[in-house]
């Protein structure tokens, strides 16, 4: 039996793949203070009845992320080249917001007093202009011991060329009992601030991750892996050494799961749309999961590969209000989990979810399987206050709130597509669970996207993605100024290093190797990653043409980084087919309710679990399931495919 676990903010989802390929799902409330207890509880619920040995367990972990967000990581020291003690605090010398006089002071992960400057200096050519002496190493160890830090990030200038100074210092620090992260082992690329920041985050979360994994491993048997931010998975040893690779792994499982299901359904070009309570994640998928090495957490840049996800500050809990000029605006303030939307029973202010309740778009009976009561009267009162202030009808205001929040998301989706050189009209909108299905059809219509794709059991998409995530090891090294021969040597060295790491974790067979280089035109500062094979320069010009709209095949190029990705495929998960049926979906109708689409319509409510392959759901319709609701507008229809996905062809 193989198990995928996705730890979300509210629920921890499980997918069990049994020896015969059958799937079982389970869900328990998350336990944010110690996520492992929800995992162990969920396993305890299911394992006895399933009676199979656990071959593999993969899980997405938010431990490192939460340590940073809540500032609960280790007390961390930082060792840097002399003269650069403050470079980490200066960053790129920009302020986060142009017109905000009240911009808050940053709370750094390292206290200024815990930074120690090291007497040493290297140059781009790799030569030491200033040697690192043993006496200096001893002094630095002494200072950090005196400061009382637990973990140390070591980040010296030009260590991407030759990390020997960092390694010598790290060796002594480890011997003295510190947890140590060197910048070159975390990300061996140029640009000192970004490399330092990545190393500091790694050092800050490493002891926390170490303790967490130790606790979990004591209670588990079998192959055990952790989800990475790049859409792959990693063994616990690597997760302990390089926990920074898990920081943005939360949404990566969902995108990985969507990738699988999109391919299976024959729609490999889509934009994912995952709307939660306070924000909404979107990611563009053009036949493969897009990965970027530019990301950040809490304003701190991370230079490790992560699934390219864009977050918009609008969700179901976003508050609607009239601003000083009398415009209806939604967000960025949110009702959060407490008090939450008015319809949850405690809040008073109108939210996007309340607007959907007023419009009859949520089924009270089916909301969270009927476990949570929806207070429609409270939603109407909250939206009504706004309607009174505006002198408009309750329905118009509620529909207005939905349109305003959609227009903001539309703007975000447009920008991410244009930025990546794509036309949004060539993509489907793939919507995850939660509130997304209520907005997806409107949103797609506004963007002229041809179809909305609602995967079967969207609530477990992430757990499926996590389980199917291949073991991936990404390595990179800046090669500015090196000859082609030297770059080949670097690629070979990266591959050797990656294979060693994988072998240490027990993966030495079936390793697939991808070699890539980041290229740019000499003098520019924008790089494009291309596969390193014959004709890679043409590949670069072609990509440059596609993404930037022009290229110059005569212009000299330079290689910035060499990259190697090693992939160990995991057994794929077969998505089971659902029972077939005819076009008539009436068998799944569980009732009707009045629902507003520029006027009240009697709208059937379909139970997702009762839909059969081949069913066609005519709009207007509400399709309800445990954690999500999909709305199909009048005049449109959704077809259920063999795997239980609903595909809505969008009409303008």
């Amino acid at each position, binding site marked *: 039996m193989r198990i995928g676990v996705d730890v979300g903010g509210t629920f921890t989802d499980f997918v069990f793949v049994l020896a015969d390929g059958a799937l079982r799902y389970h869900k328990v409330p998350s336990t944010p203070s110690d996520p492992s207890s929800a995992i162990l509880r969920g396993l305890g619920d299911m394992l006895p009845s399933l009676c199979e040995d656990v071959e593999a367990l993969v899980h997405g972990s938010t431990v490192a992320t939460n340590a940073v967000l809540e500032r609960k990581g280790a007390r961390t020291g930082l060792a840097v080249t002399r003269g650069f003690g403050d470079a980490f605090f200066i960053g790129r010398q*920009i302020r986060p917001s142009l017109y905000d006089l009240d911009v808050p002071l940053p709370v750094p992960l390292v206290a200024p007093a815990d930074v120690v400057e090291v007497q040493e200096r290297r140059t*781009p050519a790799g030569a030491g202009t200033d040697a690192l002496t043993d006496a200096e190493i001893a002094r630095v160890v002494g200072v950090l011991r005196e400061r009382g830090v637990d973990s140390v990030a070591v980040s010296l200038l030009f260590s991407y060329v030759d990390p020997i100074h960092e390694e010598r210092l790290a060796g002594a620090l480890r011997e003295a009992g510190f947890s140590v992260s060197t910048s070159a082992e975390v990300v061996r690329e140029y640009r000192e*601030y970004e490399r330092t920041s990545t190393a500091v985050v790694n050092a800050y979360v490493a002891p926390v991750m170490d303790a967490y994994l130790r606790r979990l491993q004591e209670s588990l048997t079998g192959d055990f892996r952790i989800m990475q931010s790049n859409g792959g998975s990693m063994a616990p040893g690597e997760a302990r050494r390089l926990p920074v690779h898990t920081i943005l792994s939360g949404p990566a499982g969902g995108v990985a799961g969507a990738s699988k299901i999109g391919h299976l359904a024959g729609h490999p070009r889509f934009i994912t749309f995952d709307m939660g309570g306070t924000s909404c994640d979107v990611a563009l998928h053009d036949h493969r999961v897009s990965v970027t090495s530019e990301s950040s957490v809490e304003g701190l840049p991370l230079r490790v590969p992560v699934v390219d996800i864009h977050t918009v500050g609008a969700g179901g809990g976003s508050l609607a209000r009239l*601003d000083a000029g009398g415009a209806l605006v939604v967000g960025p303030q949110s009702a959060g989990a407490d008090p939450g939307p008015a319809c949850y029973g405690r809040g008073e202010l109108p939210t996007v979810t309340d607007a959907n309740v007023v419009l009859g778009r949520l089924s009270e009976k089916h909301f969270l399987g009927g476990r949570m009561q929806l207070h429609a009267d409270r939603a109407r009162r909250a939206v009504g206050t706004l309607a009174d202030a505006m002198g408009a009808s309750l329905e118009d205001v509620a529909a207005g709130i939905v349109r305003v929040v959609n227009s903001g998301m539309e703007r975000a989706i447009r920008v991410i597509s244009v930025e990546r050189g794509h036309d949004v009209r060539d993509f489907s909108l793939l919507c995850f669970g939660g509130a997304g299905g209520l907005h997806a059809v409107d949103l797609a219509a506004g963007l002229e996207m041809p179809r909305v794709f609602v995967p079967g059991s969207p609530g477990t998409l992430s757990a499926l993605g996590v389980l199917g995530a291949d073991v991936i090891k990404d390595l990179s090294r800046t090669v500015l100024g090196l000859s082609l021969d030297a770059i080949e040597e670097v690629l070979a060295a990266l591959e050797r290093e990656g294979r060693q790491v994988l072998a240490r974790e027990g993966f030495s067979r079936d390793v697939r190797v991808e070699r890539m280089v980041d290229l740019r035109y000499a003098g520019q500062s924008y790089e494009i990653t291309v596969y390193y094979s014959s004709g890679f320069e043409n590949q670069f010009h072609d990509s440059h043409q596609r993404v930037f*709209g022009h290229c110059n095949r005569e212009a000299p190029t330079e290689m910035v980084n060499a990259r190697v990705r090693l992939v160990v495929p995991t057994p794929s998960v077969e998505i089971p087919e659902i029972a077939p049926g005819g076009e008539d979906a009436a068998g799944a109708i569980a009732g009707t309710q009045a629902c507003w689409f520029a006027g009240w319509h009697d709208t059937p409510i379909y139970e997702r679990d009762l839909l059969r392959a081949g069913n066609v759901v005519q709009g207007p319709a509400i399709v309800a399931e445990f954690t999500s609701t999909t709305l199909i507008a009048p005049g449109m229809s959704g077809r259920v495919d063999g795997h239980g996905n609903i595909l809505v062809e969008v009409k303008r």
Partner: protein
Amino acid sequence: MNALELEIFNNLFASICEEMGVALCRSSFSPNIKERKDFSCALFDPAGRLIAQAAHIPVHLGSMAYAAAGVVEKFHPGEGDVLIFNDPYEGGTHLPDITVLCAVEHGGRRVGYLANRAHHSDIGGIAAASMPISKHIDEEGLRLAPTSLMEGGRWNESLLEWIRGQVRTPEERDGDLRAQVAALHTGRQRLLEIVGRYGEARVQVAMEDLIAYAERTSRAAIGAVPDGTYVFEDVLDDDGIDPGPFAIKAAVHVNGDALKVDFAGTAPGVRGNVNCPMPVTVSSVYYAIRCLFEKSAIVNHGSFAPVEIDAVEGSLVRAVYPSAVAGGNVETSQRIVDVVFGALHQALPTRIPAASQGTMNNVAIGGFDFLRGRNFAYYETIGGGMGARPHADGLSAVHTHMTNTMNTPAEALEQHYPFRVVQYSIRRGSGGTGRHRGGDGIVREMEVLVGCECTLITERRLYAPYGLNGGRPGKRGRNLHIRKGRSEELGPKVHVLLEPGDRLRIMTPGGGGFGG
């Protein structure tokens, strides 16, 4: 149109500008546009009034709003025409900022104008990076009064040829200009799509309503400022040619929901390069007022309708031809903000911060790099201390007010230029003391490995950033030239020759403190 639709149309119009920005960023050549994002894009209504803008650089905010109406009225661009201009005396700011503008028609009727403005790192002139210690505008580079770059859809190739001939990096200029025009096409397509979807009449009503809306929010914000006349005066150190100080004085009159800034009492124009063209002055005032609005406020023509600005023609803040203006955009603009905030503090003592570093610390170094066998030209600006706020300390080591561009990493710098960064640190203790401390400045020390020339255009070397309510001033900045261990203090605006092994040590000002 009602309240329900304002935000929807705002999102639509804003997305036109954002997509133009993405297109420009994607297709441009120079790092200054691609990486530092020194550009902005805007949409105007058929009367040339600003409807939406995506600005990464505050100094572009007001100057674009100010530019279009006059240019449109005078030059009447038609469908298929693209105007180009950078003349500070006709719609521009300083010569490196080049603007392109086009009209958009639907069914033979004008539906709006689009423009974008980008900072070109070289447009000729007597010094590398086109930031000289100049005495005449023509020393700063090529100057374009509004002229057709495209006419009826065809490129004005002879103009492009002429531009290429005037600059040091013709390929890059050519590529960047074509990218700017490509971005206009992107914006045009989106605007026409929106007109197609909602109808021309509804789009025009939406533009009108958004202007009225922005004016209401602006009047609400200004209405919250107590009535009265608030006067403040501060100075510029010098102009690179003559010694200062040169006074900048503003009287801010608040009357109900309208506000007037009168620069009477400001010094006359100077011989050096710190003269400030009117659009830059307007931008600086708009920036200060914009900071009083909500962070997410919609900003367009209407936002500044309640704001009137008066300045004597030929004064330091309303430069006339042929005054040199290279430093006006980067330095004088900062002092104008200091002066307007100094006045507003009297009205809003719990909102306005003390003076920030008040300079961009412009450093331009150029010469022949015999180590790499090529000419080089390097330009950077350095952050400093933000003024203390009434309720919090100021941020340290950041760019403040009119700019927000990134630094160049030491590892990139040493890879490409014959420099070595010796020190890059926070200048501890440089922020003014007080109940809340001003942010600290930066110390940046570089050694040059080859002989080269260097231009510094800096401020607050002689007169410190002020504190408020008894807070102490921030420390003044310092420019040091270190040769063989001996250090010489340089003036605020200088051109110096450096020998191999010489070091340049720039210590940027701290912010003023707040409260005794």
